[in-house]
């Protein structure tokens, strides 16, 4: 079982977590053309490389971010969402 280190609860088996997928851009819906909007809806970050994604630690309901390599599955780091907000 892979380990994921929750910034609040420490290293845990990954089955304690729920993936919410890569962080998505949030274009202004009212300033986006139809075609761009549908592409935004259905596109998914899937590049081979490192993604920043949302995870939920289910027992504590804590949401945080992780940088993970989609090829090696290595988790580079995990951090509280405030970090992204403060240093986007």
């Amino acid at each position, binding site marked *: 079982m892979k380990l994921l280190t929750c910034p609040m609860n420490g290293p845990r088996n990954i089955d304690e977590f729920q993936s919410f997928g890569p962080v998505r851009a949030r274009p202004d819906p009212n300033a986006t053309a139809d075609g761009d909007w549908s*592409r935004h809806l259905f596109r998914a970050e*899937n590049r081979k490389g490192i993604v920043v*994604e949302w995870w939920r630690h289910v027992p504590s309901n804590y949401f945080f971010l992780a940088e993970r390599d989609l090829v090696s599955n290595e988790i580079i780091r995990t951090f509280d969402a405030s970090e992204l907000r403060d240093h986007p």
Partner: protein
Amino acid sequence: MPLRLLKYGLSRDYPVSGDIPATPDLKPAYDVVIIGGGGHGLSCAHHLAKYHGIKSVAVLEKAYLAGGNTARNTTTIRSNYITPEGIAFYKEGVELFERLSQELDFNVMFSQRGQLTLAHTEATMRSFHMRAEIGKHMGTRTEVVDQKGVEELCPLLNMDYGGPLEILGGLWHADGGTARHDAVAWGYAAQASRRGVEIHQRTEVQGFEVVGDRVQAVKTNRGRVACGQVLIATGGMNYDVALMAGVELPIRCYPLQAMVTQPLKPWLDTLVSSVSLHTYLVQSSRGEVVIGGGSDPYQLYSTRSTLDMKEHLAEGAVHLFPFLQGVRLLRQWAGITDMTPDYSPIMGASPLTNLWLDCGWGTWGFKATPVAGKRIAQTIAEGRVPDILKPFALERFETFRLLNEMGATAASH
């Protein structure tokens, strides 16, 4: 004894068939370059060569032939989907499988023993009725069976009467079956190469030369190849390869795992799958019981296996057939699936005029090997998308014309 066996026995030397010619040198240009030497790419090559007279075809495979999802899938063949467009397409796929051994003169061991999907909840029964009604309407053999019917089709099942996982009924799909996955790919490879198609193993695509709205050439580790038309059919690598051409597909990659037991004498005739338990079982002609389930819970480009998935699948298998406790598991493995938002493939045109897509096959691609190859070959040869493929166009995501097959795909593939 079949005649061919007698021929073998009476010949002094091993009768070499030469199914897969050694990789030749790359030519500077081909009419059609097919990226991906899996079942789909080889099937397309075969259909181009045999039915459309297009022989200047190169199939580029970065590793060894049919070593990706063609080799890793658990070979379910069926057409009991939920959208009429999906059923029409997969139904043609099943029909092609029914005569595939003859088509290829290669025994693909199509074993149409039927698929029984189990419902443990009323919601699942409801979705089964939906699939059965559409399936019947579209002319497939798909019907809902009650508890008695389930017991007759598979008497060894644990019905769990009164329990939390009581089997309430099933979806019986007499058209369902399996085939030998490798044989399908090898058969297509042998036929295609006999008609002049070149198969290039260990040939990895590293980029595209795009000029305007056309792909001018494909860049590989063995050099540049100019191309008339290009097809992307690279399974788990579809997103990545398409991106090299500047096309971003609505695809996410997830590992899909499966496992197999030691060989046993036959005891399970049909494919059995359970929606609630996310587990399916099928016994191969070698006697091994192949067990699979749903995809991994998060995105990943890796074919590593996990213990948790193995435990989960074992739990499901033992729940359905408690006597399997003492049966031993031999091997587990994984493939990388390219999942689309609506659990249907993306076939046909791309934003580039000579780049064609055979992508988004997620966990359900094997069954479509013959039909996708046939219809995409037709598309490339005629330069237009036939009606049967139109619903699967990439544009459907821009117009919300989704072909939602999630409910018909989850645990059955």
